[in-house]
């Protein structure tokens, strides 16, 4: 049990820095260096403060039930939620009204975005990256489609031209990060444990540890999963979906959310086309049905086919 926050120390994703060997357990709004005792000193509480609004500002708010407030209220209340300054934020909070008011005091009308916390953090990451002119891409695919292989190859081919660093997401092991490290690139591994996707908070911790240089490229390899990574904005410039010819050509309509959320689809392992039954045109037609604006590039991450087009797209994103 963590004495400061009361959280169970076993829960949470683990961040590993392959270069320094440091490991951290990530909790909601703070991290625990792993191996160290859970003392006050071993604990960095970074944010997640509550603050009060005492300036007497007024909010407009909506009541869905069809009644009107002819008044504005002044507040002197506490918001127990984290709150980002300078971001779009639906400020819907509850407050009690005095007895002069007729509606049932027990019903609170809200407009709380369920993914709001993640979205706010993703915007914060985006601002952080923009400020340093760093291009971040979120690579998504089913397990084994070839994300790590593509990254290894991209780093080897473009290493002299671009500064590339990597955030690796996997449920377990640092195997992918070790592969990236072997190319000489800076990399941190995030192990999500039971979690099946990266979220913006994990990436924000990952970025702090990675400390990518200005004007560089950060590749975020998401957990192999075509479902939930579509829902979690990480602050990336674009999602790049990878699908391989060993998976069946109907992946784009079986997992439409992911292909809709992506800007590019890389059709990988085309060197295997002579050995598998895979209709390339059909796959692309399905993908376009879901996302008419999708850019499709056929590649072989191992043999090198089509990579020139991928690199051209990558360069174009840097502006």
């Amino acid at each position: 049990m963590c004495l400061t926050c009361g959280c169970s120390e076993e829960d949470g994703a683990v961040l590993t820095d392959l270069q320094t060997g440091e490991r951290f357990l990530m909790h909601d709004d703070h991290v625990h260096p792993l191996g160290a005792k859970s003392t006050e000193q071993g604990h960095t509480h970074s944010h997640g403060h509550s603050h009060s609004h005492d300036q007497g500002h007024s909010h407009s708010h909506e009541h869905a039930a069809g009644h009107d407030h002819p008044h504005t209220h002044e507040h002197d209340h506490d918001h127990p939620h984290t709150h980002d300054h300078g971001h779009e934020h639906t400020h819907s909070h509850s407050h009690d009204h005095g007895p002069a008011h007729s509606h049932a005091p027990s019903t609170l009308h809200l407009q709380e975005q369920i993914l709001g916390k993640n979205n706010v953090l993703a915007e914060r990451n985006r601002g952080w990256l923009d400020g340093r002119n760093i291009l971040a891409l979120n690579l998504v695919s089913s397990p084994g489609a070839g994300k790590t292989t593509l990254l290894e190859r991209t780093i080897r081919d473009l290493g002299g031209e671009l500064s590339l660093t990597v955030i690796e997401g996997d449920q377990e092991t640092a195997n992918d990060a070790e592969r990236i490290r072997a190319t000489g690139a800076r990399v941190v591994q995030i192990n999500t444990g039971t979690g099946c996707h990266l979220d913006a908070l994990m990436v924000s911790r990952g970025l702090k540890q990675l400390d990518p240089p200005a004007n560089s490229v950060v590749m975020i390899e998401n957990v192999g999963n075509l479902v939930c990574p579509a829902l979690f904005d990480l602050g990336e410039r674009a999602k790049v979906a990878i699908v391989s010819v060993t998976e069946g050509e109907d992946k784009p309509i079986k997992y439409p959310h992911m292909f809709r959320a992506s800007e590019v689809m890389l059709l990988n392992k085309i060197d295997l086309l002579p050995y598998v039954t895979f209709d390339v045109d059909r796959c692309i037609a399905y993908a376009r049905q879901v996302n008419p604006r999708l850019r499709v590039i056929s590649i072989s991450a191992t043999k090198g086919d089509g990579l020139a087009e991928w690199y051209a797209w990558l360069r174009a994103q840097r502006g």
Partner: protein
Amino acid sequence: MHELGITQEIVELAEARADGRRVRKVVVEIGRLSAVLPDAVRFCFEMCAEDTSVAGAELQIIEIPGTAKCRACAGMVALDRPFGRCECGCTDLEWLSGEELRVTQIEVE
């Protein structure tokens, strides 16, 4: 899957807003195009609410249908999955509703 985390968020939002009071009911809107399955949220709710001020609360899910506007002819298209085709043949659609994912009401004691 991700519905577990989503349901945890719902419970946390309700708990924060209830500010110590017991929550009797939570109303959420889930759009048909949101990639979140209402049944899975219902399934997770009781477990997520356990040992919180939301324990025992009723969960009401309002499902919002998907609608879109065709980018070619401006015609309206109803969507029950995250893609579709306008009568004019165009698949480039601007989504108008169906992505909702929010807590809209709680009842506290």
